[in-house]
Structures are given as C-alpha cells and as structure tokens.
C-alpha cells in the first residue's frame, strides 16, 4: 500500500483491494471484519486495528452518504496513517495499546458503486421503495433516535427519506448490531462532507445532551488542532443549533446508546466545489482531519467512563 495513490479518487473495487492489501501487509495488527451485507449483497467491510484482546473500541466511518467522495478517500488515508504511525507516534501508539480502532471506509457500498457507474450525485442507499419509483433511503435519517421526527422526510423521492422504519437499511442495521454486540465502543465518529463543521448530539431535539459542556469543549480543541495545519476554519456545536434539525441521525443513536464521544464531521469545503472537491485536496483534508480525530481519541483514552 506504499504505492497506492492517496491523492486520487478510487472505485469500490480498488478500495476493497486496498483494504485486503493493507490487511495482508500488517498481519496481527490489521484485520478485516465483514459486519453484514448491503442491500445489493456487497460485503460491509470494517478494518480493525488491534494490538491485544478485549480492548474497548473507537469507531470511525466514512462514506455513509455515497457522493461525499472526499470522506471515503480520507478514510483510506486514515487507515494508512494508523499503520504507519503505530510504533512511531507515541500518542497513537498509546491509544492503540489500550483501544482497538474500527474503521468503515465505504459505509454505503451500493450507493458508492452507483456514483461511479450511474449517477455521481447519488446520496442514499439503493434499496427500492415499494409503491414508489424512487430508490433508496437516507442512511443518516434511518437510525432509531427521534426516528420519523422533523428534519427527515417521509417521502421516498426525497434525498432525506427516513425509510419505512428505523434500521430498515442493512447498511445501518449492520452497524447497530456491531455496536450492540461489541458493547464497549467509547467514541464514535461519523464523517461527512461538506461545510467544515464538527457536530455533536443532538440533531433531533433542542434539549442539550447531558455531556454538552464536555463535548463542546472537546470540539473546540479538536477544530483548533485541525486548523493549525492549513488554517481551515470549522464551526462547531450541536447538530440542531449549528446546522439544522435532523432526526434519525447516526450519532444521536450512538450517543443514546451510551457512547459519550459521538461526533459528526462535515469535511471541506464551504462551498466552492461542495461534493466534487478536487482530488488535490484529499490529502490536506485527511491530514487536518486526522489531527482532530487524534484529539478526540486521546481525550476518550484519558477520560475513561
């Protein structure tokens, strides 16, 4: 994977080959876990970075909205960064000596494949909706956290269609089952683009979450670190106060499951290119985001709960 082009966008097949190669190169440290199958039967692959048994976990996912290509590309870069820095970077080594990191690079593989073959602007899953010609569900409105409330659509043709019921999408259900069966995930970061924001629960209610003060301060530290590299400016705060009301969101569910450090990133940019961020911004985006991720992971490690 040293020769892999991290500064370019890749197809699903290329990413899956990369994942297999990374596992092959790092036996005993990196493994691939298939947590389920997408609607179209594709494996839902996660990478597990682990240096010992029975560790608590830190979760990162990218690409749940398939058209947000810079997120999957950043996920690839994060995976290489983890294997490169373990044993070299004292802070990451310390984290990995106590925690496992789980990384799902292509969280919505059917949608991602569709963006390459048919419609670059596809966002949702690819499951048909009975009684409608419109396909797919917004997988970030499909979680059982305020499901069906304001900030999600009940119309299958909408880009924010919540789905017929919570966890109806196999891509969502697989994560739900994994998180529940693991039972000891301590931080959960779901990565989107674009608009340069770092957000924490809640999106479905204006009631502040009980850890708001700590999450707010940690978000401030994380974006300060992020901006130290290229001066990229982020906004931060709860989802509902910073961006908009959104029900059925990923990190609202993970927070309600007891995962205190639940965050959503919205990566670059703020509106020059939007979802079609040029490939020459992949590495800078991943580099700066990594600094914020490290801040969150370090904090989770130093503040066990």
């Amino acid at each position, binding site marked *: 994977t040293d020769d892999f082009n991290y500064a370019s966008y890749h197809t699903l097949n290329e990413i899956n080959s990369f994942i297999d190669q990374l596992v092959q190169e790092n036996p005993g440290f990196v493994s691939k876990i298939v947590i389920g199958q997408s609607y179209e039967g594709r494996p839902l692959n996660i990478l597990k970075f682990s240096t010992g048994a029975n560790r608590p976990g830190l979760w990162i996912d990218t690409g749940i909205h398939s058209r947000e290509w810079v997120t999957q590309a950043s996920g690839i870069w994060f995976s290489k960064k983890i294997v490169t820095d373990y044993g070299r970077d004292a802070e990451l080594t310390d984290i990995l000596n106590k925690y496992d990191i789980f990384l799902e690079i292509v969280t919505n593989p059917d949608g991602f494949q569709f963006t390459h073959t048919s419609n670059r602007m596809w966002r949702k899953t690819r499951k048909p909706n009975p009684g409608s010609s419109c396909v797919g569900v917004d997988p970030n409105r499909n979680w059982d956290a305020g499901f069906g409330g304001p900030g999600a659509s009940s119309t299958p043709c909408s880009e924010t269609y919540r789905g017929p019921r919570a966890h109806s999408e196999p891509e969502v259900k697989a994560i739900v089952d994994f998180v529940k069966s693991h039972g000891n995930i301590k931080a959960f970061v779901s990565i989107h683009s674009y608009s340069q924001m770092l957000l924490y629960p809640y999106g479905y209610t204006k009631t502040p979450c009980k850890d708001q003060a700590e999450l707010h301060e940690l978000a401030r530290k994380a974006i300060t670190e992020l901006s130290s590299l290229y001066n990229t400016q982020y906004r931060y705060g709860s989802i509902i106060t910073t961006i908009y009301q959104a029900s059925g969101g990923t990190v609202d569910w993970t927070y309600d499951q007891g995962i205190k450090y639940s965050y959503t990133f919205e990566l670059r940019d703020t509106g020059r290119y939007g979802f079609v961020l*040029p490939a020459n911004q992949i590495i800078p985006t991943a580099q700066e985001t990594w600094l914020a991720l490290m801040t969150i992971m370090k904090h989770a490690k130093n503040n066990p709960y």
Partner: protein
Amino acid sequence: KETFEGHQVLRITALNEAQLDLLKELHDKEQLGLDFWMEPSDVSLPIDVRVPFHSLQDIRAFLMYHEIYYDIMIQDLQDVLDEEQREMLRAKSLQSRS
C-alpha cells in the same frame, strides 16, 4: 451514466425568515428536480442547490421576483465531473506506468 450538462449549483442567501420559507417551499416542488446540497435551514447559513438545466430559467425568475440573492457556485456541473474523471484516469495511467 447520468450526465449533468447545464446543471448549475447556486449558492442562495436568504436575508430573512420570509425568504427562507419561500426557499423551503421550493424544496417541496419535486417537478423542478432540485437537489439541495445545503438545505434551507437558517438565515445564517447559505443554501446550495443543484438546478437541472430545464429548471434554471424558472428558478432564476423565482429568485429575482422575490429579490433573493444568489451566486453561481458551479457554472456547469458536468464540466467539473469530466475534470474529476480525467484526473482519475491521469492518476491511474501514472500508477500503471510507475
């Protein structure tokens, strides 16, 4: 493969709640084929919307009639996507040569 020739991405700025409400109504008009990249939510936030070629005239007229300010964020989305594909091909070709 769906093409986006002539599709523009507009960045719209709502100056008040009334304009924001008008843009939310636009959101529900399925026949226009709008794709909101940034949804209308608050006057402090921009609204980015991909407008198919067939709806451009209607949307521009609507915005002008209601004196809602907008900028063109992406002039022709297909041009940007074509460049994205060229870049991927360039990268692959360099990779295979090396």
